[in-house]
């Protein structure tokens, strides 16, 4: 931990001291609050909201990748029986929306100068479209989805087609096709040390080119908005990851008081970055639903189809790399020249900026580094983080290590240990455990050397990097309400995207406060009526920041509670004389002198009083990513993960079967181990998809993305995942989070595909430089290797 991080961490610990031992619930997987309701089909998701008189909305989608609406005629759609309203881009409701904040950029501090110019504000129903399937022109509200769809077909539009560019290489050399001044957005050159000197110092130079495929977004519940007005008060049932920021955006967009916008966040059918409410398509949908509801004075629901729902993809990246290395494996210099795809998606494009070299820069000792990044505009789907924005940095770091190891005939794990800034204690422990559990030393073989009895080639690969989580970012707050029977409800707005974070937070509060876990509840589905807000899912950062607030709340509430009941233990008894465990309050000096919390509180309540609860709140100030520009020092590289993959490659068909996965992850501290394991195996399964199938396919003549669904994007099912999938959580390293914890869900999905790639290399003896490793690429590589021999 750097001195700077240590200083901030110590200050936080002074403010919020947490338990270090005698845990009652932390480290045990307490029953998740949502499981039964979800199993019974009773948990209410946004898509399940049905309101009396509700209409169904649909938005027109662009058939072209770049075009302008010259004229629009909606008269036939309006006349269709069952259609309540057709709203067009020329209507005052639409033109009066202030869309500037919808695409407000997030400056994380690493973006180069000039990024402001690349932020484009788009109207919520576009006139000029920048990508196929963009929401544009008009929206319809009807009494069934079927009629709404029918009405869209009756809208007549005169289009002016404009030149489109789908490929990054074309965008670099062609005329302007985007809203920016040229297609190239904000190039960035970052050089540290002396790269040329570093290359001279090297014994070996490793060079190559590689490509990262843009991943389609595929959370299972599609984007859905339900909006209702009562006079001038707006309620939106929300499908998203970041609830509170939506109030600010939507109230400003609609030019109404924030106090009259209410957002309800039911259960969420996954997200994986997609529903972050910063991309342009999902915020548009919420506002279009709100406008249709205001015009019709009826609740309006808009649910995207599966095809519409692919409104975000990961960034495509192509890169040239050059690495200088000494014969003992010490990297002396590296250089990456990368190009990432962008799209008009507001801030989204900028997230890629300057990133691909970040992990290598932050994790490796090598000080001679050069990163030359370009982000170019293409007429494709909006780009946004896809569990997560760290895919590109992971690909580059992994490429460097694997290719160096291969060239020097070294074990990749040795190359990691040799070059990491901080190999001990975590990375070393993780590698040891990985070797032990996987039998690595007995299984790893020279590339292409092992043919199995079934005729297939066996391969094994490993990848290592840090567990990714941010220290603490935004201001967060949480409240607690104790009822007269001693049961407690936690109060804070926090989306539930599937990790049962609510159970985790309740675990911390119950443990720190001394409450019986069964007496604590944290309802997942709350609304902005609640004044407290926790950091939403995303960035693997929720727990890292939110846990501080939970500990602080527990301390404060316990103090207030004990002050309240001290008199019940005799005159002169002070809060300091008391303690509580398992919801039983006792005298520290005489633990047998005890009373159950329920009994004490019950006897104190005035049955006629309207307020019979004790309510306490706590807030933790975020340390701010943007304002202090301290992102890099907050990203802790204290906890590592290693993933081992074994594959069987059929050299006749090019098919790759992943036969086993081992995931060893140091997470600092497990609050709720089942959640950690769920993130680990879930991330691994996504990693297999990314390694083997995920890509986006566009029709070159129309610019329409062809595989935005579950048929042409082959998502992994039980049939594709290995029977042998082992996860191990470790608690070795300590990050600056409370209890030493770190985020876990993102790195796993960011890393595993690298192990798939190196396992395939180990099987066939040729690197495949382009993700995903589809059978055609594998076959081409096999041919190159001349390994078509039969068993």
């Amino acid at each position: 931990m750097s001195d700077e991080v240590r200083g901030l961490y110590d200050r936080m610990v002074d403010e919020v001291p947490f338990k270090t031992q005698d845990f009652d619930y932390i480290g045990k997987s307490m029953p998740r609050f949502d499981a039964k309701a979800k199993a019974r089909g009773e948990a209410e998701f946004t898509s399940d909201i049905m309101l009396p008189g509700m209409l169904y909305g649909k938005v027109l989608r662009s058939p072209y990748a770049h075009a302008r609406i010259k004229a629009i005629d909606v008269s036939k759609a309006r006349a269709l029986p069952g259609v309540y309203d057709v709203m067009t881009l020329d209507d005052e409701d639409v033109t009066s929306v202030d869309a500037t904040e919808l695409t407000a950029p997030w400056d994380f501090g690493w973006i180069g100068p000039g990024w402001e110019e690349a932020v484009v504000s788009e109207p919520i129903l576009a006139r000029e479209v920048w990508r196929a399937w963009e929401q544009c022109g008009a929206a319809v509200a009807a009494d069934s989805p079927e009629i709404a769809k029918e009405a869209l077909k009756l809208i007549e539009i005169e289009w002016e087609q404009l030149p489109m560019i789908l490929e990054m290489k074309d965008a670099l050399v062609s005329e302007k096709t985007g809203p920016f001044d040229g297609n190239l957005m904000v190039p960035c050159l970052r050089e540290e040390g002396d790269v040329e000197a570093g290359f001279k110092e090297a014994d070996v130079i490793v060079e190559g080119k590689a490509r990262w495929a843009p991943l389609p977004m595929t959370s299972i519940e599609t984007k859905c908005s339900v909006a209702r007005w009562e006079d001038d008060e707006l309620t939106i049932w929300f499908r998203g990851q970041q609830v509170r920021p939506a109030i600010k955006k939507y109230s400003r967009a609609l030019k109404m008081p924030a106090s009259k916008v209410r957002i309800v966040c039911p259960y969420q059918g996954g997200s994986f970055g997609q529903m972050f409410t910063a991309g342009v398509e999902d915020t548009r949908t919420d506002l279009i639903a709100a406008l249709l509801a205001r015009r019709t004075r009826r609740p309006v629901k808009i649910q995207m189809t599966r095809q519409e729902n692919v409104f975000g993809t990961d960034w495509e990246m192509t890169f040239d790399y050059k690495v200088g290395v000494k014969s003992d494996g010490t990297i002396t210099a590296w250089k990456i020249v990368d190009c990432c795809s962008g799209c008009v998606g507001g801030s989204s494009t900028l997230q890629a900026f300057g990133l691909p070299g970040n992990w290598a820069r932050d994790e490796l000792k090598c000080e001679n580094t050069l990163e030359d990044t370009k982000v170019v505009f293409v007429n494709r789907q909006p780009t946004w983080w896809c569990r997560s924005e760290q895919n590109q940095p992971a690909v580059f770091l992994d490429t460097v290590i694997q290719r160096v190891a291969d060239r020097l005939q070294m074990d990749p794990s040795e190359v990691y240990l040799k070059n990491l800034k901080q190999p001990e204690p975590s990375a070393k422990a993780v590698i040891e455990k990985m070797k032990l559990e996987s039998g690595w030393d007995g299984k790893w073989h020279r590339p292409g050397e092992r043919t199995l009895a079934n005729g297939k080639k066996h391969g094994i690969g490993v990848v290592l990097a840090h567990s990714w989580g941010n220290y603490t970012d935004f201001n967060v707050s949480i409240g607690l309400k104790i009822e007269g029977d001693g049961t407690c409800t936690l109060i804070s707005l926090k989306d539930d995207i599937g990790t049962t974070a609510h159970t985790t937070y309740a675990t911390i509060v119950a443990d720190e406060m001394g409450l019986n876990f069964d007496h604590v509840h944290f309802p997942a589905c709350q609304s902005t009526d609640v004044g407290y807000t926790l950091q939403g899912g995303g960035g693997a950062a929720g727990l890292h920041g939110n846990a501080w607030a939970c500990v602080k709340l527990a301390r404060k509430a316990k103090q207030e509670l004990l002050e309240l009941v001290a008199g019940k233990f005799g005159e002169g008894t002070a809060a300091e004389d008391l303690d509580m465990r398992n919801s039983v309050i006792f005298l520290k000096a005489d633990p047998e002198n005890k009373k159950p919390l329920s009994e004490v509180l019950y006897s104190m309540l005035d049955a006629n009083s309207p307020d019979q609860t004790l309510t306490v709140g706590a807030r933790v100030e975020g340390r701010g990513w943007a304002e202090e520009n301290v992102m890099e020092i907050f990203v802790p590289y204290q906890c590592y993960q290693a993933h081992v993959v074994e594959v069987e490659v059929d050299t006749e068909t090019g098919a790759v079967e992943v036969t086993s996965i081992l995931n060893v992850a140091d997470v600092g501290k497990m609050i709720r181990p089942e959640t950690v394991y769920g993130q680990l195996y879930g991330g691994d399964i996504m990693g297999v998809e990314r390694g083997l199938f995920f890509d986006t396919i566009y029709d070159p003549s129309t610019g329409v993305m062809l595989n935005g669904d579950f048929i042409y994007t082959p998502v992994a099912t039980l049939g594709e995942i290995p029977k042998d999938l082992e996860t191990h959580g470790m608690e070795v390293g300590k990050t600056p989070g409370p209890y030493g914890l770190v985020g876990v869900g993102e790195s796993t999905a960011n890393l595993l595909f690298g192990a798939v790639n190196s396992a395939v290399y180990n099987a066939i003896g040729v690197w495949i430089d382009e993700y995903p490793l589809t059978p055609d690429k594998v076959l081409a590589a096999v041919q190159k290797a001349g390994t078509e021999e039969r068993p």
Partner: protein
Amino acid sequence: MTSADDAGREYDDSARVICLRVNGRDYRVLARPGWTLSFVIRDKLGLTGTKLACDQGACGACTVIMDGRPILSCMTLAVECEGRDIETIEALAAENHPLLDAWVQTESIQCGYCTPGVVMTAKALLDRVPNPSDGEIREALAGNVCRCGTYPRWTKAVKAAVKGTKA
């Protein structure tokens, strides 16, 4: 039955009352011919435990059991289901079927959106094969998509339910 719009374009405006037997209860619903069973179950009968995720028969989230077989309700027209016996997750909840407890105990749930469809597919399997092998479970559930990736728990969950049934 068709009507015509102002431009003289014809559109299908026929709707008729259909009888559906869902979870042992008879419903009479006014349905248009293009309405899917999933739309009628969710939006007209209010049984929102059945989920809609892909609407193209590719993910299994909308699985219900019809006459003993698991079917994709997003790919089935409601008008085709007259007189059929349909079972949804709400029926399993009402009887507290062992699969539910098994899914909870093995933590085969994350976001939970796919869960009812997976559980219904598993129920259809157990109705047919009371004590399935690992291979039979994998084959039966291979059509259900879980984006959170709870797959490694499913086999355990079905086996736990088998034990629950025997007890």
